[in-house]
């Protein structure tokens, strides 16, 4: 897809909505009170009576009366021949096939054209009917005074507004449903055109809704260090970032909540489906293979080793949040928490009991510091800060009754650790010991032709050629296990059957197993490893099995003589995604070539949903859009006459549909050319949008102030004008063969509708209640 689906933040949206509605309500009440006092000249009794009556109307709404008015509205639409729109629709369906067939030779694009055509046709046919009826309904009732016989019954004005809105929404829903069913039949019979002679099952395989699980994306640069974006290959409008071929540059996706349920059944058992669509950028012609079959890319699955490093950090309540942030890799957040903790150590030292300080001492000195030392000189500062903090904590524990005198020292160490974590955190995350499982390279199909060549399937147990790190970690875990079971040594020598055990139980190739035995024997001879009652002890430098094998790997004593290398097995969940997070790194293997990627370009594919499910959701979004148009139309018609109401609603729709995204880009500063006045001047001066205006600093300052003021107004307008583009996203999903997701499409559409429905009903009811229907 060419857009990035961003999950809807319901909590933030609700908070913003409450603030905005609260401000508007307060403003309306103040304005009403002022107007009432000015016109009636009283102390506001009329206003308070009116307000109380209005609130009473709201709480005494009768659903039966609302239903009666809704039914009347439906009947009115039916008898006024609003449903003639079906005739136009039928005519379009009869002849549309002539004009949209054979436009594309690829089945998926044909399908996209058919689906987009159908959903757009349905929207644009119903929209004018709904807009016209909703804008003219109430004003016409008032004009011919039929509303008078209604409101002289015990009918609250809010019931009239609600009944009208629900009536028009029901009418549009009925039309939408009928057209939707007809459209579904048309799509399934017509598309894809190129498979017209194929079997129904072949055609149906295209009509599906893929369900993706998206991860978060960041990049590693040429040096292997983290960065928010990859390389820009020169197109400023491109939303993809590129990784350089044959370098340490990688795109890193972290997928959350990867569990066994994520796997899909396949003929060889359950497998993980990874689907991708990358874009190639070539600086040279390359090989014939790379031209015809696409660039070569590789997935590498990487374990997240932060759990190892911080597993016991901050068990006590005083440090628990800090530990959680470190384990989650949220180093900025951890640094802030450390700063806060430092301040609390100075202000309320009792928050940090001796038991907590002891835990921190243990985690820093015994665990974190060795891990950081292992990472090398890059993180020496961080390691030192952890060490200092651990020592300061130990001092607090040891001081006993005099602990308060040691707390300032601990607070200072905590502040230094905060700085170290803030600066070194992201680097630390990349350098943490981790298990890397490189998967088989593949050719990137740049032009998806409907076959599933960009869908890769991986079983739970992965076989891979280990790198140095992987080899050391594998041998460490193997030797720890064998030592624990007492199978490693016989006396002070390796056990006789160790070779067989390695080959049979751990699938180590004979060549590699012999190599390990030789190396172990050498270490025993050198005295690096000493056996003491079937337990190995190490020299101080090696410390443990991991330290020993890491040193041996670095000294290249464990280089495999087997042509296949160290072929090992890793379990997707036990070894890689232990905490539910799966990290997938994507690299380009072709030299001087670049692969472009954006967040939606790689996803885990869950079981597909039937096409009608996604199609139904797209119709639901269209229904919500029509509903919002009705709500705006009816509200406007409570204040002004039909034609004015119609053009008002049309204007809001056009702005909301075409310009709202641009408004948001301007407000957020993402639109080239800066502010409105500045842009206008740059156009006049024929200047590049990035260069700024050619004017004195005082003029620039003034332009900036005007632009800021305009930006504030624009921000207000963007809150009041609904973003209609939200409703059309569903068509893009379904057109591209994806299911319409709840969190990024349906929920925002639903909340936008509700967010406008509630205040519009209240505004419409107030306008109708406080206006004289018979005013001359």
């Amino acid at each position, binding site marked *: 897809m060419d857009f990035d689906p961003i999950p809807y933040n319901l909590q933030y949206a609700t908070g913003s909505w409450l603030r905005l509605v609260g401000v508007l309500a307060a403003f309306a009440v103040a304005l009403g009170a002022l107007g009432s006092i000015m016109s009636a000249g009283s102390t506001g009794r009329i206003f308070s009576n009116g307000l109380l009556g209005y609130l009473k109307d709201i709480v005494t709404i009768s659903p039966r009366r609302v239903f009666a008015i809704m039914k009347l509205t439906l009947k009115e639409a039916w008898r006024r021949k609003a449903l003639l729109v079906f005739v136009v629709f039928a005519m379009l369906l009869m002849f549309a096939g002539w004009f949209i067939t054979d436009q594309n030779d690829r089945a998926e694009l044909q399908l996209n054209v058919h689906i987009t055509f159908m959903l757009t046709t349905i929207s644009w046919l119903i929209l004018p009917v709904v807009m016209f009826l909703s804008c003219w309904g109430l004003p016409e009732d008032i004009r011919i*005074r039929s509303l008078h016989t209604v409101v002289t019954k015990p009918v609250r004005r809010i019931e009239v507004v609600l009944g009208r809105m629900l009536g028009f929404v029901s009418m549009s829903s009925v039309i939408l449903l009928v057209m939707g069913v007809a459209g579904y039949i048309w799509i399934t019979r017509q598309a894809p055109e190129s498979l017209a002679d194929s079997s129904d099952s072949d055609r149906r395989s295209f009509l599906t809704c893929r369900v993706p699980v998206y991860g978060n994306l960041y990049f590693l640069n040429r040096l292997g260090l983290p960065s928010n974006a990859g390389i820009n290959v020169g197109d400023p409008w491109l939303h993809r970032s590129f990784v350089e071929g044959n370098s340490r540059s990688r795109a890193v996706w972290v997928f959350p909540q990867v569990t066994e349920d994520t796997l899909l059944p396949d003929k060889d058992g359950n497998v993980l489906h990874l689907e991708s669509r990358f874009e190639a950028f070539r600086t040279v012609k390359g090989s014939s293979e790379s031209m015809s079959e696409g660039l070569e890319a590789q997935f590498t699955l990487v374990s997240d080793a932060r759990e190892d490093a911080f597993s016991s950090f901050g068990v006590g309540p005083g440090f628990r949040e800090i530990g959680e942030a470190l384990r989650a890799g949220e180093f900025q957040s951890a640094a802030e928490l450390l700063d806060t903790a430092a301040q609390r150590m100075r202000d309320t030292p009792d928050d940090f009991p001796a038991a907590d300080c002891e835990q921190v001492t243990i985690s820093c000195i015994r665990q974190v510091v060795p891990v950081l030392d292992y990472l090398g000189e890059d993180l020496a500062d961080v390691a030192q800060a952890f060490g200092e903090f651990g020592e300061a904590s130990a001092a607090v524990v040891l001081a006993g009754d005099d602990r308060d005198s040691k707390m300032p020292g601990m607070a200072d160490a905590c502040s230094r650790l905060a700085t170290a974590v803030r600066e070194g955190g992201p680097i630390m995350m990349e350098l943490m010991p981790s298990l890397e499982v490189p998967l088989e390279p593949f050719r990137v199909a740049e032009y998806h032709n409907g076959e599933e060549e960009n869908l890769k399937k991986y079983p739970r147990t992965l076989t891979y050629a280990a790198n140095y790190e992987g080899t050391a970690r594998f041998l460490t875990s193997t030797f720890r296990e064998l030592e624990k079971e007492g199978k490693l040594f016989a006396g002070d020598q390796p056990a006789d059957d160790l070779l067989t055990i390695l080959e049979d139980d751990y699938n180590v190739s004979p060549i590699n197993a012999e190599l390990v035995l030789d190396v172990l024997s050498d270490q025993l001879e050198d005295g690096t490893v000493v056996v003491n009652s079937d337990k190995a002890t190490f020299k101080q430098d090696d410390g443990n099995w991991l330290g020993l094998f890491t040193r041996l790997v670095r000294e290249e004593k464990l280089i495999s003589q087997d042509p296949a290398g160290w072929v090992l097995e890793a379990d997707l969940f036990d070894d890689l995604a232990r905490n539910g997070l799966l990290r997938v790194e994507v690299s380009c293997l072709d030299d001087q070539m670049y692969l472009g990627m954006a967040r939606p370009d790689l996803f885990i594919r869950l079981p597909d949903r039937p096409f009608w499910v996604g199609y139904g959701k797209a119709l639901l979004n269209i229904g919500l859009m029509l509903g919002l148009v009705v709500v705006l139309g009816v509200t406007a018609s409570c204040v002004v006459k039909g034609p004015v109401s119609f053009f008002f609603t049309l204007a809001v729709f056009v702005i909301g549909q075409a310009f709202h995204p641009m408004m948001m880009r301007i407000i957020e500063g993402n639109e080239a050319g800066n502010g409105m006045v500045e842009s206008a001047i740059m156009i006049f001066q024929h200047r590049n949008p990035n260069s700024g205006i050619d004017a004195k600093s005082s003029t620039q300052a003034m332009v900036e102030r005007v632009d800021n003021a305009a930006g504030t107004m624009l921000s207000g307008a963007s809150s009041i004008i609904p973003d209609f583009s939200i409703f059309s996203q569903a068509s893009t999903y379904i057109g591209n063969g994806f299911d319409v997701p709840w969190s990024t499409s349906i929920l925002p559409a639903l909340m936008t509708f509700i967010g406008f429905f509630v205040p519009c009903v209240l505004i419409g009811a107030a306008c109708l209640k406080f206006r004289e*229907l018979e005013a001359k």
Partner: protein
Amino acid sequence: MSEQENVIEIRNLSKVYRDFWGRKKVQAVKSLSLDVRKGEVFGLLGPNGSGKTTTIKMLLGLLFPTSGEISILGKKASDVAKNERIGYLPEESYLYRFLNADETLDFYGRLFNLSNEDRVRRADELIKMVGLNNARRRQLKEYSKGMTRRIGLAQALINDPELVLLDEPTSGLDPIGTREMKDLILNLKEQGKTVVLCSHQLADVQDVSDRIAVLFQGELKLMGDVDQLLELREETEIRTGNLSDAAIAEVEEVLKKHGMSSSDIKKPRVDLEELFLRTVRESGERPGRRFTAEEMAATQTKGDSEETTEDPAS
């Protein structure tokens, strides 16, 4: 009657219509104060533009008073709950023309939250009462003006109201319909309901009203019991059977003896409404026959209590 029995109380009510800029356009009602008692038929009279309809609309909350106070059934005019007990027939029947009679009454019945059974029963009764039984399935856009008034009246009575406000109730009705409307108003009165009717058809108001108020240019000019207001205290009217010329001469002698110098002794005349109603009624009995003036005169003594045509629409 005591104050507690007033159904409507209006005190110093004024209404000024203003233009868009708030400038005074016209004062439709000026310091109006009046009461309507429970169970009476109250006529609000006045020429066009005298403020009758404005007053009614302020009573119903369709217009807001510029000043003054209104109490209707013990509640404020702005209180929607009062409408539960009110029936209103507007000046013209502003109904939904795409509905038929049954649907119209069903819709308005729903607005009163009447149960399904009540709605069906009331609609049936009212449609028969206003003589639209044969046209109940036709959309209102096909109705004549008189038929529209009838269905308008039916919707005003769907909730069996305590207070009925009728704005120009006989407007657009033929004489038969007018008579029926008047009979209905009297019937409502017999049921203990209060009726306020607003009209410039003076004869109609005179026939049914207990009390009247006359408005002119927004001001109350006259108010009181119809009988007292219309009574001519300086004259005496004697009606009797047919007298011979000799008998008439003798009566004149008697009058002279009592000092009545001029007297007007003549054959009384039936009014045109009565004549029309009898003609139509007789036509119903003997279709196609034409009546002479003599025959009509002969029917003058026939009972006023006889029923009028059952289905005037036909």
